């Protein structure tokens, strides 16, 4: 019978814990969540000498006794899982601070294995650590590793197995010297004194001359002026990378789905199970394709973010942008989720977990959908070229992003003064040493995040795409206002010129499709909504497309194509643009973009808001609150614009 063990990995943030976790578990890890908690832990497995070892990677933390979400998770995991051993990962280049947490873990009554990670960084700094002496002083087993170079991993695995195997007979470590054993709570000063005693004989320091990369980079990257300039420039590079480099990959995916659809059309006759055929082509391929098309952007964005995070730069961004964020009554750390929001609101909302104050976290979460996400770009890409001259394309796009940030700033200020009022949590963040992250780790991080995006958003979007397809397809019209078939036949037999015949045939077909759509549930809802959206300059067709945008913003374009009875929208972008230009004014186009920018976020975002806030209330407030703001602003813009 396979022996099963549970091991917990704990340590300060930035001590290389995740690198070790990946090295130990390989590709077996998966991301899980504890119900009711807000911070992620990772789980993986290690098979060794016939034993199955479950490895739980706790969130990075400094202290076991505080009450931030990370510490809550750590305590909960240690208490609920009753691990066989705790692995305390420490950054060897900052031993004193890292061993503070180790000393707390050693009081849990569970055998502890200390991993002296980043041994190379410690050596570079001039530290010489004798692991045997340290092990003797601490009375625990110690293994030395360099996680990012995969050094010491085999010894670590063997030691884990050995300790797991002996865990039942091992006695838990003791932190307290006899003089302090009577004390109920050991003070911070005493704890540091004990750590000092451990380190006294085991660590020597020889100052090494030479360049200190972190100091030199920080001189430039955290400069009050140049730091901001470099940050803005870097973000420009990231967005360019995401949208320019991603474009050809998006086209390939689009072509693939078009090809798949055309193959089905070719080999599946329209008369054989027409319902299933339509569901597959328009509902499933259309829905899933709509999401997967944006996968290159998402992958590239997470690649860039993983690289910047891996280098240690993101903490510096929080530092240089703290003043700006303070003006929005937000925390310096809020900048990271906000930047992620330009890619997709789903991972951005998940990234708010790093914020300690619930008020600041909730405020950031509520305003995040105002950061113009990648899906909204498809709406801008359709409408801006259709209604504005080429010299205004760039400025119009920037205007949309700017409006989003401006509304977010005002909304954050209002929320922090009303619903989420309360003092700001003081800003305190560790600025880790700059490092060159390994390609393997960046790719793993990118894939983990993207997988989450596909899993969470993709499933919801797929279901709702099918639902929206159903709404836009049923009920089927029984009686048309005119006999289109006879009209088409008469036209076919007429002596008109071929080009004129084709134009008129197209008009008849479009009129028929419009009538079919108007009869469906989506069409009826659009007409039902029309009186409410007319003051914004929108007609029932736009209303129907707005319903489509509820599932995912990019579905607005597809839905607008359907309601305008233009087939194969993606292949015929120009006709759709021409058609829109014939029906609407630039003011209406601007109002559509404004409304789509500010109004209710997509269903996936609402679902993540619900999960992260642990309440439907906030997801609904976000949904309806943003829609009301969008309605009022669009109404003002349209009505004032109409007067000019």
């Amino acid at each position: 019978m396979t022996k099963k063990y549970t091991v917990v990995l704990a340590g300060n943030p930035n001590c290389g814990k995740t690198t070790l976790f990946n090295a130990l578990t390989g590709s077996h890890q998966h991301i899980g969540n504890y119900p009711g908690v807000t911070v992620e832990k990772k789980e993986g497995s290690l098979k060794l000498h016939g034993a199955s070892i479950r490895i739980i990677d706790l969130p990075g933390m400094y202290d076991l006794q505080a009450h931030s979400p990370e510490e809550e998770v750590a305590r909960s995991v240690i208490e609920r899982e009753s691990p066989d051993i705790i692995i305390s990962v420490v950054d060897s280049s900052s031993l004193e601070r890292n061993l503070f947490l180790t000393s707390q873990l050693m009081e849990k009554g569970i055998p502890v294995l200390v991993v002296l990670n980043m041994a190379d960084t410690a050596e570079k700094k001039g530290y010489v650590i004798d692991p045997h002496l340290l092990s003797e002083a601490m009375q625990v087993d110690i293994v030395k590793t360099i996680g990012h170079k995969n050094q010491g991993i085999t010894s670590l695995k063997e030691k884990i197995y050995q300790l797991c195997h002996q865990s039942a007979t091992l006695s838990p470590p003791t932190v307290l010297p006899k003089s302090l054993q009577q004390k109920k709570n050991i003070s911070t000063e005493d704890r540091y004194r004990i750590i000092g005693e451990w380190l006294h004989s085991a660590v020597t320091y020889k100052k090494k001359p030479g360049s200190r990369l972190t100091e030199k980079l920080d001189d430039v990257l955290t400069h009050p002026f140049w730091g901001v300039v470099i940050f803005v420039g870097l973000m420009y590079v990231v967005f360019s990378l995401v949208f320019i480099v991603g474009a050809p990959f998006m086209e390939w995916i689009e072509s693939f789905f078009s090809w798949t659809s055309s193959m089905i059309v070719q080999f599946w006759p329209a008369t054989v199970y027409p319902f299933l055929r339509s569901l597959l082509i328009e509902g499933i391929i259309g829905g899933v394709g709509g999401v997967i098309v944006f996968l290159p952007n998402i992958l590239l964005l997470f690649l860039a973010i993983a690289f910047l995070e891996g280098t240690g730069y993101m903490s510096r961004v929080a530092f240089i942008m703290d003043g700006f964020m303070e003006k929005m009554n937000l925390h310096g750390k809020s900048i990271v989720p906000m930047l992620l929001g330009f890619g997709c609101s789903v991972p951005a909302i998940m990234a708010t977990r790093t914020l300690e104050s619930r008020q600041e976290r909730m405020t950031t979460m509520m305003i995040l959908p105002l950061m113009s996400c990648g899906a909204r770009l498809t709406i801008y890409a359709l409408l801006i070229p259709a209604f504005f001259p080429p010299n205004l394309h760039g400025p119009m796009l920037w205007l949309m992003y700017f409006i989003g940030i401006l509304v977010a700033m005002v909304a954050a200020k209002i929320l922090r003064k009303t619903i989420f009022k309360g003092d700001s949590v003081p800003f305190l963040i560790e600025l880790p040493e700059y490092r060159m992250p390994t390609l393997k780790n960046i790719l793993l991080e990118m894939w983990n995040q993207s997988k989450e995006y596909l899993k969470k958003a993709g499933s919801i979007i797929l279901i709702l795409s099918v639902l929206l397809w159903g709404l836009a397809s049923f009920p089927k019209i029984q009686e048309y206002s005119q006999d289109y078939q006879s009209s088409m036949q008469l036209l076919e037999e007429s002596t008109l010129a071929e080009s004129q015949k084709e134009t008129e045939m197209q008009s008849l077909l479009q009129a028929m499709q419009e009538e079919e759509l108007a009869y469906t549930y989506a069409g009826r809802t659009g007409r039902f909504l029309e009186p409410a959206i007319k003051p914004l300059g929108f007609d029932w067709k736009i209303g129907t497309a707005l319903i489509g945008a509820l599932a995912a913003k990019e579905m607005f374009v597809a839905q607008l194509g359907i309601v305008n009875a233009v087939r194969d929208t993606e292949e015929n972008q120009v006709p759709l643009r021409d058609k829109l230009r014939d029906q609407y004014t630039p003011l209406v186009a601007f109002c559509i973009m404004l409304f789509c920018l500010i109004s209710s976020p997509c269903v996936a975002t609402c679902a993540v808001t619900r999960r992260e806030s642990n309440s439907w209330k906030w997801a609904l407030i976000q949904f309806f609150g943003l829609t009301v703001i969008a309605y009022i602003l669009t109404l003002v813009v349209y009505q004032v614009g109409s007067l000019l």
Partner: protein
Amino acid sequence: MSEVDSRRSMKICSIHGDEAYIRRLSCMGILCGKTISVLRRHGRRGAMMIQAGDSRFALDVGLYENIEVEEEQ
């Protein structure tokens, strides 16, 4: 610490304010008796970057105005 200029090393003589933050600072290695260096500050009341031991931290006025420092002996 509000008055300390960049590039100066000082010794922490007391930290007052919320107990939770004193504890948070302590477990990060910022506690009485420790020497810290101010590496960068963004204005008189802006965020500050400090070096404490082998680690660098950014903290805002809400924290550093509660930290009292003295010249190193």
